[in-house]
Protein backbone atom coordinates (compact mmCIF):
# COMPACT_ATOMS: atom_id res chain seq x y z
CA UNK A 1 0.00 0.00 0.00
CA UNK A 2 1.32 3.39 -0.89
CA UNK A 3 1.63 5.45 2.26
CA UNK A 4 0.62 8.53 0.26
CA UNK A 5 -2.73 7.02 -0.67
CA UNK A 6 -5.57 8.43 1.43
CA UNK A 7 -8.24 6.09 2.75
CA UNK A 8 -11.44 6.86 4.59
CA UNK A 9 -11.28 6.27 8.37
CA UNK A 10 -12.14 2.64 9.03
CA UNK A 11 -10.87 1.42 5.64
CA UNK A 12 -9.27 -2.02 6.16
CA UNK A 13 -6.23 -0.91 4.18
CA UNK A 14 -5.30 1.38 7.07
CA UNK A 15 -4.36 -1.84 8.90
CA UNK A 16 -1.22 -1.91 6.73
CA UNK A 17 -0.28 1.57 7.91
CA UNK A 18 -0.80 0.83 11.61
CA UNK A 19 0.98 -2.51 11.44
CA UNK A 20 3.96 -0.70 9.94
CA UNK A 21 3.81 2.15 12.46
CA UNK A 22 3.76 -0.40 15.27
CA UNK A 23 6.76 -2.30 13.86
CA UNK A 24 8.64 0.98 13.36
CA UNK A 25 8.03 1.98 16.96
CA UNK A 26 9.42 -1.07 18.71
CA UNK A 27 12.29 0.54 20.53
CA UNK A 28 14.49 -2.35 21.65
CA UNK A 29 17.27 -2.12 19.05
CA UNK A 30 17.22 1.66 19.52
CA UNK A 31 17.42 1.14 23.30
CA UNK A 32 20.47 -1.10 22.92
CA UNK A 33 22.14 1.49 20.67
CA UNK A 34 21.33 4.14 23.26
CA UNK A 35 22.83 2.16 26.14
CA UNK A 36 25.91 1.49 24.02
CA UNK A 37 26.37 5.19 23.18
CA UNK A 38 25.72 6.36 26.76
CA UNK A 39 28.34 3.90 28.10
CA UNK A 40 30.79 4.94 25.38
CA UNK A 41 30.38 8.64 26.14
CA UNK A 42 30.55 8.05 29.88
CA UNK A 43 33.74 5.96 29.70
CA UNK A 44 35.48 8.20 27.18
CA UNK A 45 34.37 11.38 28.96
CA UNK A 46 35.59 10.08 32.34
CA UNK A 47 38.89 8.95 30.89
CA UNK A 48 39.32 12.31 29.11
CA UNK A 49 38.78 14.21 32.35
CA UNK A 50 41.21 11.94 34.17
CA UNK A 51 43.92 12.14 31.49
CA UNK A 52 43.60 15.93 31.44
CA UNK A 53 44.18 16.09 35.19
CA UNK A 54 47.07 13.62 34.91
CA UNK A 55 48.60 15.64 32.05
CA UNK A 56 48.30 18.93 33.97
CA UNK A 57 49.84 17.42 37.11
CA UNK A 58 52.51 15.54 35.09
CA UNK A 59 51.48 12.20 36.59
CA UNK A 60 52.63 9.98 33.75
CA UNK A 61 51.49 6.71 35.40
CA UNK A 62 47.89 7.86 35.72
CA UNK A 63 48.04 9.45 32.28
CA UNK A 64 49.20 6.23 30.59
CA UNK A 65 46.67 4.20 32.57
CA UNK A 66 43.77 6.49 31.56
CA UNK A 67 44.76 6.49 27.89
CA UNK A 68 45.08 2.69 28.02
CA UNK A 69 41.68 2.33 29.71
CA UNK A 70 40.10 4.63 27.12
CA UNK A 71 41.49 2.68 24.15
CA UNK A 72 40.67 -0.67 25.77
CA UNK A 73 37.05 0.37 26.44
CA UNK A 74 36.75 1.56 22.86
CA UNK A 75 38.01 -1.78 21.56
CA UNK A 76 35.68 -3.77 23.86
CA UNK A 77 32.71 -1.73 22.66
CA UNK A 78 33.68 -2.17 19.03
CA UNK A 79 34.00 -5.93 19.53
CA UNK A 80 30.65 -6.11 21.32
CA UNK A 81 28.82 -4.16 18.61
CA UNK A 82 30.17 -6.52 15.94
CA UNK A 83 29.70 -9.77 17.82
CA UNK A 84 26.69 -12.10 17.69
CA UNK A 85 26.17 -11.25 21.33
CA UNK A 86 24.55 -7.92 20.52
CA UNK A 87 21.88 -9.39 18.20
CA UNK A 88 21.20 -12.25 20.67
CA UNK A 89 20.92 -9.69 23.45
CA UNK A 90 18.46 -7.61 21.43
CA UNK A 91 16.37 -10.71 20.75
CA UNK A 92 16.38 -11.78 24.43
CA UNK A 93 15.34 -8.33 25.66
CA UNK A 94 12.68 -8.09 22.93
CA UNK A 95 11.34 -11.49 23.86
CA UNK A 96 11.30 -10.61 27.55
CA UNK A 97 9.52 -7.29 26.99
CA UNK A 98 7.31 -8.00 23.99
CA UNK A 99 7.07 -11.81 24.07
CA UNK A 100 3.37 -11.80 24.90
CA UNK A 101 2.41 -9.46 22.10
CA UNK A 102 4.65 -11.19 19.59
CA UNK A 103 7.17 -10.09 17.05
CA UNK A 104 6.81 -7.86 14.00
CA UNK A 105 9.56 -6.19 12.06
CA UNK A 106 9.89 -3.53 9.46
CA UNK A 107 13.29 -2.82 8.02
CA UNK A 108 12.11 -0.61 5.18
CA UNK A 109 14.39 -0.14 2.23
CA UNK A 110 17.27 -2.02 3.86
CA UNK A 111 15.11 -5.14 3.53
CA UNK A 112 17.38 -7.14 5.81
CA UNK A 113 16.78 -8.01 9.42
CA UNK A 114 19.29 -8.78 12.12
CA UNK A 115 22.86 -7.81 11.51
CA UNK A 116 23.56 -4.37 10.13
CA UNK A 117 25.71 -4.01 7.01
CA UNK A 118 29.41 -3.33 7.16
CA UNK A 119 29.14 0.39 6.38
CA UNK A 120 27.01 0.96 9.49
CA UNK A 121 29.61 -0.86 11.58
CA UNK A 122 32.20 1.40 9.95
CA UNK A 123 30.16 4.46 10.94
CA UNK A 124 29.86 3.16 14.52
CA UNK A 125 33.62 2.55 14.59
CA UNK A 126 34.05 6.10 13.30
CA UNK A 127 31.82 7.38 16.10
CA UNK A 128 34.03 5.65 18.63
CA UNK A 129 37.27 6.85 17.02
CA UNK A 130 35.91 10.41 16.74
CA UNK A 131 35.02 10.53 20.44
CA UNK A 132 38.37 8.99 21.32
CA UNK A 133 40.07 11.72 19.30
CA UNK A 134 38.01 14.37 21.13
CA UNK A 135 39.06 12.86 24.46
CA UNK A 136 42.72 12.89 23.39
CA UNK A 137 42.47 16.52 22.26
CA UNK A 138 41.07 17.38 25.69
CA UNK A 139 43.75 15.30 27.44
CA UNK A 140 46.53 17.21 25.68
CA UNK A 141 44.78 20.57 26.24
CA UNK A 142 44.15 21.18 22.54
CA UNK A 143 40.41 21.53 23.23
CA UNK A 144 38.61 22.73 26.38
CA UNK A 145 36.51 20.00 28.01
CA UNK A 146 33.50 22.33 27.75
CA UNK A 147 33.49 21.78 24.00
CA UNK A 148 33.16 17.98 24.30
CA UNK A 149 29.37 17.98 23.77
CA UNK A 150 29.36 20.29 20.71
CA UNK A 151 32.30 18.23 19.36
CA UNK A 152 30.33 15.04 19.96
CA UNK A 153 27.16 16.50 18.37
CA UNK A 154 29.08 17.26 15.18
CA UNK A 155 29.41 13.51 14.47
CA UNK A 156 26.59 12.10 16.60
CA UNK A 157 23.76 14.12 15.03
CA UNK A 158 24.38 13.10 11.39
CA UNK A 159 25.27 9.56 12.55
CA UNK A 160 21.96 9.15 14.39
CA UNK A 161 20.03 10.70 11.51
CA UNK A 162 21.60 8.22 9.07
CA UNK A 163 20.75 5.32 11.41
CA UNK A 164 17.15 6.52 11.85
CA UNK A 165 16.74 6.89 8.09
CA UNK A 166 18.39 3.55 7.34
CA UNK A 167 16.36 1.63 9.92
CA UNK A 168 13.23 3.57 8.92
CA UNK A 169 12.29 4.22 12.53
CA UNK A 170 9.24 6.28 13.47
CA UNK A 171 9.06 10.05 14.05
CA UNK A 172 10.00 9.57 17.71
CA UNK A 173 13.53 8.47 16.84
CA UNK A 174 14.26 11.92 15.38
CA UNK A 175 13.86 13.49 18.82
CA UNK A 176 17.29 12.29 19.91
CA UNK A 177 19.54 13.63 17.11
CA UNK A 178 17.57 16.86 16.74
CA UNK A 179 17.62 17.79 20.44
CA UNK A 180 21.23 16.64 20.84
CA UNK A 181 22.29 18.74 17.84
CA UNK A 182 20.40 21.81 19.07
CA UNK A 183 21.92 21.35 22.53
CA UNK A 184 25.40 21.31 20.98
CA UNK A 185 24.76 24.52 19.03
CA UNK A 186 23.36 26.25 22.13
CA UNK A 187 26.33 25.18 24.27
CA UNK A 188 28.77 26.31 21.59
CA UNK A 189 27.20 29.76 21.49
CA UNK A 190 27.34 30.05 25.26
CA UNK A 191 23.66 29.69 26.12
CA UNK A 192 23.63 29.04 29.89
CA UNK A 193 22.75 25.33 29.88
CA UNK A 194 26.04 24.32 31.38
CA UNK A 195 26.71 22.36 34.56
CA UNK A 196 29.42 23.78 36.81
CA UNK A 197 33.11 23.00 36.31
CA UNK A 198 33.16 20.18 38.86
CA UNK A 199 30.31 18.47 36.99
CA UNK A 200 31.75 19.08 33.49
CA UNK A 201 31.11 15.48 32.38
CA UNK A 202 27.37 15.93 32.91
CA UNK A 203 27.35 18.45 30.04
CA UNK A 204 27.68 15.54 27.63
CA UNK A 205 26.19 12.66 29.64
CA UNK A 206 22.90 14.37 30.54
CA UNK A 207 21.95 15.36 26.95
CA UNK A 208 22.99 12.02 25.47
CA UNK A 209 21.12 10.11 28.16
CA UNK A 210 18.14 12.45 28.54
CA UNK A 211 17.26 13.09 24.89
CA UNK A 212 17.72 9.40 24.07
CA UNK A 213 15.44 8.44 26.95
CA UNK A 214 12.78 10.95 25.84
CA UNK A 215 12.90 9.43 22.33
CA UNK A 216 12.66 5.86 23.65
CA UNK A 217 9.75 6.62 25.98
CA UNK A 218 7.91 8.47 23.21
CA UNK A 219 8.48 5.52 20.85
CA UNK A 220 7.30 3.03 23.46
CA UNK A 221 4.12 5.00 24.22
CA UNK A 222 3.47 5.42 20.50
CA UNK A 223 3.94 1.68 19.93
CA UNK A 224 1.22 1.00 22.56
CA UNK A 225 -1.08 3.41 20.75
CA UNK A 226 -0.29 1.90 17.33
CA UNK A 227 -0.95 -1.62 18.64
CA UNK A 228 -4.30 -0.56 20.10
CA UNK A 229 -5.25 1.14 16.82
CA UNK A 230 -4.16 -1.92 14.86
CA UNK A 231 -6.19 -4.34 17.00
CA UNK A 232 -9.30 -2.15 16.99
CA UNK A 233 -9.10 -1.45 13.28
CA UNK A 234 -8.51 -5.12 12.41
CA UNK A 235 -11.55 -6.21 14.44
CA UNK A 236 -13.85 -3.44 13.21
CA UNK A 237 -12.78 -3.02 9.60
CA UNK A 238 -12.81 -6.75 8.80
CA UNK A 239 -15.57 -8.19 10.99
CA UNK A 240 -16.21 -11.92 11.28
CA UNK A 241 -18.84 -13.11 8.83
CA UNK A 242 -21.81 -15.16 9.94
CA UNK A 243 -21.86 -16.99 6.64
CA UNK A 244 -18.38 -18.46 7.11
CA UNK A 245 -20.05 -21.53 8.57
CA UNK A 246 -19.20 -23.48 5.44
CA UNK A 247 -16.79 -26.30 4.86
CA UNK A 248 -13.80 -24.04 5.46
CA UNK A 249 -15.04 -22.92 8.84
CA UNK A 250 -15.73 -26.47 9.87
CA UNK A 251 -12.21 -27.32 8.82
CA UNK A 252 -10.88 -24.48 10.97
CA UNK A 253 -13.01 -25.50 13.93
CA UNK A 254 -11.64 -29.01 13.62
CA UNK A 255 -8.16 -27.48 13.70
CA UNK A 256 -9.10 -25.57 16.85
CA UNK A 257 -10.26 -28.72 18.60
CA UNK A 258 -7.04 -30.38 17.57
CA UNK A 259 -5.04 -27.62 19.27
CA UNK A 260 -7.34 -27.22 22.22
Amino acid at each position, binding site marked *: *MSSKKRYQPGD*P*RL*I*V*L*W*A*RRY*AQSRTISFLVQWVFIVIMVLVIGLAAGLTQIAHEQHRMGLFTLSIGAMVLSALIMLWFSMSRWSS*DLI*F*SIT*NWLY*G*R*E*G*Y*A*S*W*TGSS*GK*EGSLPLWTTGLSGGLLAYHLLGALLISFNYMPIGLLQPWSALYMTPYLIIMVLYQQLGFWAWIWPILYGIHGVLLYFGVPLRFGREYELLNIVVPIFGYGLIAILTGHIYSRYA*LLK*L*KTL*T*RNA*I*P*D*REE*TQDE*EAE*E*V*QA*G*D*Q*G*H*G
Partner: protein
Amino acid sequence: MDDLDRTIHEPARLRILTILSGVDAADFNFLLNTASLTKGNLSSHMDRLEKAGYVSVEKSFKGRMPHTKFSITEEGASALKKYWEGLDAIRAMQDQGDNSA
Protein backbone atom coordinates in the same frame (compact mmCIF):
# COMPACT_ATOMS: atom_id res chain seq x y z
CA MET B 1 -18.29 -11.07 -6.39
CA ASP B 2 -17.23 -14.28 -8.12
CA ASP B 3 -14.04 -12.54 -9.29
CA LEU B 4 -12.85 -12.11 -5.72
CA ASP B 5 -10.19 -14.54 -4.54
CA ARG B 6 -11.97 -16.99 -2.21
CA THR B 7 -8.78 -17.66 -0.25
CA ILE B 8 -8.44 -14.00 0.64
CA HIS B 9 -12.15 -13.22 0.96
CA GLU B 10 -12.41 -15.15 4.24
CA PRO B 11 -12.24 -12.40 6.96
CA ALA B 12 -9.60 -14.11 9.11
CA ARG B 13 -7.27 -14.66 6.15
CA LEU B 14 -7.90 -11.14 4.91
CA ARG B 15 -6.89 -9.83 8.34
CA ILE B 16 -3.73 -11.95 8.38
CA LEU B 17 -2.65 -10.98 4.88
CA THR B 18 -3.39 -7.29 5.41
CA ILE B 19 -1.37 -7.23 8.63
CA LEU B 20 1.51 -9.11 6.99
CA SER B 21 1.53 -6.69 4.06
CA GLY B 22 2.40 -3.88 6.50
CA VAL B 23 5.49 -5.54 7.95
CA ASP B 24 8.50 -7.51 6.73
CA ALA B 25 7.75 -10.43 9.01
CA ALA B 26 5.64 -11.29 12.04
CA ASP B 27 5.44 -14.28 14.35
CA PHE B 28 2.53 -16.45 15.44
CA ASN B 29 1.93 -14.54 18.71
CA PHE B 30 1.73 -11.21 16.97
CA LEU B 31 -0.82 -12.47 14.46
CA LEU B 32 -2.75 -14.19 17.23
CA ASN B 33 -2.95 -10.91 19.14
CA THR B 34 -3.76 -8.57 16.32
CA ALA B 35 -6.02 -10.73 14.17
CA SER B 36 -8.05 -11.80 17.23
CA LEU B 37 -8.04 -15.49 16.38
CA THR B 38 -7.64 -18.66 18.38
CA LYS B 39 -4.45 -20.72 18.02
CA GLY B 40 -6.16 -23.49 16.04
CA ASN B 41 -7.94 -21.03 13.83
CA LEU B 42 -4.75 -19.18 13.05
CA SER B 43 -2.82 -22.41 12.35
CA SER B 44 -5.44 -23.59 9.87
CA HIS B 45 -5.57 -20.24 8.10
CA MET B 46 -1.78 -20.02 7.94
CA ASP B 47 -1.65 -23.52 6.41
CA ARG B 48 -4.19 -22.50 3.83
CA LEU B 49 -2.33 -19.27 2.98
CA GLU B 50 0.98 -21.11 2.79
CA LYS B 51 -0.49 -23.74 0.45
CA ALA B 52 -1.85 -20.95 -1.76
CA GLY B 53 1.68 -19.52 -1.90
CA TYR B 54 0.56 -16.27 -0.27
CA VAL B 55 2.77 -16.48 2.83
CA SER B 56 6.21 -17.89 3.47
CA VAL B 57 7.35 -19.45 6.73
CA GLU B 58 10.85 -19.17 8.13
CA LYS B 59 11.81 -21.34 11.06
CA SER B 60 14.97 -20.54 13.00
CA PHE B 61 16.57 -20.67 16.41
CA LYS B 62 17.48 -17.63 18.47
CA GLY B 63 19.84 -19.04 21.02
CA ARG B 64 17.97 -22.16 22.16
CA MET B 65 14.52 -20.80 21.40
CA PRO B 66 12.68 -21.79 18.21
CA HIS B 67 11.27 -18.86 16.29
CA THR B 68 8.81 -19.01 13.39
CA LYS B 69 8.28 -15.97 11.23
CA PHE B 70 5.66 -15.41 8.56
CA SER B 71 5.98 -13.05 5.61
CA ILE B 72 3.70 -12.21 2.74
CA THR B 73 5.08 -13.43 -0.59
CA GLU B 74 5.11 -11.38 -3.80
CA GLU B 75 2.29 -13.58 -5.04
CA GLY B 76 0.33 -12.88 -1.85
CA ALA B 77 0.92 -9.13 -2.10
CA SER B 78 -0.21 -9.06 -5.70
CA ALA B 79 -3.30 -11.21 -4.94
CA LEU B 80 -4.18 -8.88 -2.06
CA LYS B 81 -3.78 -5.82 -4.30
CA LYS B 82 -6.02 -7.44 -6.89
CA TYR B 83 -8.55 -8.30 -4.20
CA TRP B 84 -8.80 -4.68 -3.00
CA GLU B 85 -9.09 -3.45 -6.58
CA GLY B 86 -11.89 -5.94 -7.20
CA LEU B 87 -13.68 -4.87 -4.03
CA ASP B 88 -13.30 -1.19 -4.96
CA ALA B 89 -14.79 -1.93 -8.38
CA ILE B 90 -17.79 -3.69 -6.80
CA ARG B 91 -18.32 -0.78 -4.39
CA ALA B 92 -18.08 1.73 -7.25
CA MET B 93 -20.70 -0.24 -9.19
CA GLN B 94 -22.95 -0.33 -6.11
CA ASP B 95 -22.56 3.41 -5.59
CA GLN B 96 -23.39 4.01 -9.26
CA GLY B 97 -26.50 1.85 -8.90
CA ASP B 98 -27.56 3.72 -5.73
CA ASN B 99 -27.10 7.09 -7.42
CA SER B 100 -29.04 6.15 -10.54
CA ALA B 101 -31.89 4.74 -8.40
